[in-house]
């Protein structure tokens, strides 16, 4: 129970960071971390397939797409001044949500834990990643490499344009 409480808090922190970040690139990376935390929660609740797909599609592909899109925006446009009043209200909203979560989330997690017992036998993280979906891991490595080369290819020109 402690693990997924921690993961839930981490996911919330990363999500908040994604919304409040001034740089688009930081937002994209934080969103990827949200997906990683969520996929770990899936694994923790004995839903390895959902975890693997969350990791593949959201943490891998979507992040690379965001980074690709960000790379097309000129560096100076990235830092355009904006009204950030909403960003200061967010921590307050998060605090209110945290207090509500303190009361309502534990029973919700209890319910999910019952679901975990029902799903037990669906496979562990290791079975799902290395046994059932090994070729996807190769695809993920390729996606990661593609993301790095997109940054190396497009970002130098983005800085030059500035």
């Amino acid at each position, binding site marked *: 129970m402690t693990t997924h409480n921690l993961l839930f808090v981490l996911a919330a922190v990363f999500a908040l960071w994604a919304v409040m970040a001034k740089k688009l690139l930081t937002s994209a990376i934080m969103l990827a971390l949200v997906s990683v935390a969520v996929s770990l929660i899936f694994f923790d609740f004995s839903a390895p397939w959902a975890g693997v*797909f969350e990791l*593949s*599609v959201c943490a*891998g*592909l979507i992040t*690379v*797409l965001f980074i*690709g*899109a960000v790379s*097309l925006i000129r560096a100076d446009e990235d830092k355009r001044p904006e009204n950030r009043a909403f960003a200061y209200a967010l921590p307050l909203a998060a605090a209110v949500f945290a207090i509500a979560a303190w009361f309502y989330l534990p029973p919700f997690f209890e319910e999910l834990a019952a679901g975990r017992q029902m799903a037990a036998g669906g496979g562990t993280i290791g079975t799902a990643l290395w046994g059932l*979906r*090994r*070729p*996807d891991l*190769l*695809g*993920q*490595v*390729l*996606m990661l*490499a*593609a*993301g790095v*080369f*997109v940054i*190396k*290819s*497009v970002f*130098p*020109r983005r800085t*030059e344009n500035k």
Partner: protein
Amino acid sequence: MDKGLLAYLLIPLLSAVIIPFAARNRPKLADILANVTLLAGLANLAWLALRPSIIRGEFADIPGDGFSLLLVAAVYLVALCVTFFSAWFIEEGLPNRSAYYSLILVSVSAMCGVVTTTDFFTLYVFIEVLAVTSFALITTDESGAGLEGALKYFFLTFPASALIIIGIAVMLMSLGSLSFESLRFFMASDLPAGPVTFGAALMLLGFIIKAGVVPFHTWAPDAYQGAYAPVSAHLAGIVTKVSGVYAIIKMATLLRFFDGRAQALSEMLMFLGLLSIAVGALAALKQTNLKRMLAFSSISQVGYIVLAAGLGTPLAIMGAIFHLINHATFKTVLFLNSASVEKSAGTTDMDKLGGLEHTMPWTSWTSIVALLSTAGVPPLSGFWSKLIIILALWEAGLKGYAVLALLFSIVTLAYFMMMQKKVFFGKKTPAAESSPEVCAPLLAPVVLMSGLIVALGLLFPYFYVYVKMVAERILL
């Protein structure tokens, strides 16, 4: 996943990672590493394909269904032509030289992943890697056109990805598995096929968009025209063929498991194939830009493959596979030649070009070989694949489709003759006066590919036996 072909995926990936480090201080090393990697892969494939047993027509040593091996060879061949051409085409000061080669090698790995996988979700992951690398490669051209092409590619092909993933989800819910084989087992049972057919339809729609089939073709001319010149050859020659057209053929062969219960899908594929042939050919007639005309021609030729895939008979699948390979050869030649013309004359506007055969004879002659093959003139390779497709349509009783496919083949010849007349024949224009033939290394890939077009045509009986074996393994 076909483990026998895994090395063809892993080695380019390894090279792609090494290149940025190795070529940090010596940019030319990136050219060498990329070319050596692809040449080594191709030499290995040649060693595999030219074994005495295989020459005798015994294909027991060929891994998987043989289709994967054929496509891996096509991927390596086109990529080698593109990287070899790029080594002499890219300006010295290009800041992202090593990233360019790394992206091409990652796309080669992804294409090998696409053609060797036997699982829907893994297919999706590799196709997305291919989409990301293609998007970055299109933007190698720093002009506005390159960016516009990349954005159109981005906005039109990523909704296709959404359709594919929804289709996969529906499949998973119905089949309980994501492997291609599970479809076979599912259809053997008496369970209702409705949801699976729906999932297959969504996936097919996604692949149709990615292949640039009419009416979802609008991204293709802009992307091909706006992309960096050698990248156009890479995209049109092999990338869109693997990410879209190969997947359509694969789905079409899988639809045969439905035993007539997905007849509407097959008919839709055939109709869209014919529509692509017609719209692509008629639009190509009106173009004044060489690269844009080639893009529409590509849309038209993809139509032949989709039409044959939709028909789905063993003969039609054979024609589709052979035309896919042929398309990779002749479109690579034509796009690389357009890059040579652009480099030499400084434009691809056909109204400003003319009489280039006097100054660029090698480019002109290789273009003639490729265009005649595209139009289906005997004895070149394109003739045989089109003949098989038209015969398959006739044999299936679809005489109207067969006649129209034949008629538009004549239109193909017409627009290519107009292109040849405008660009290479006639009097020299001012642009042609100062356009010398490109250097020998830039000609080498197109001469090699032109030789292959002639060889595939003349050695057709040998190649026919291999393609027949592939079609039989896929369908049985």
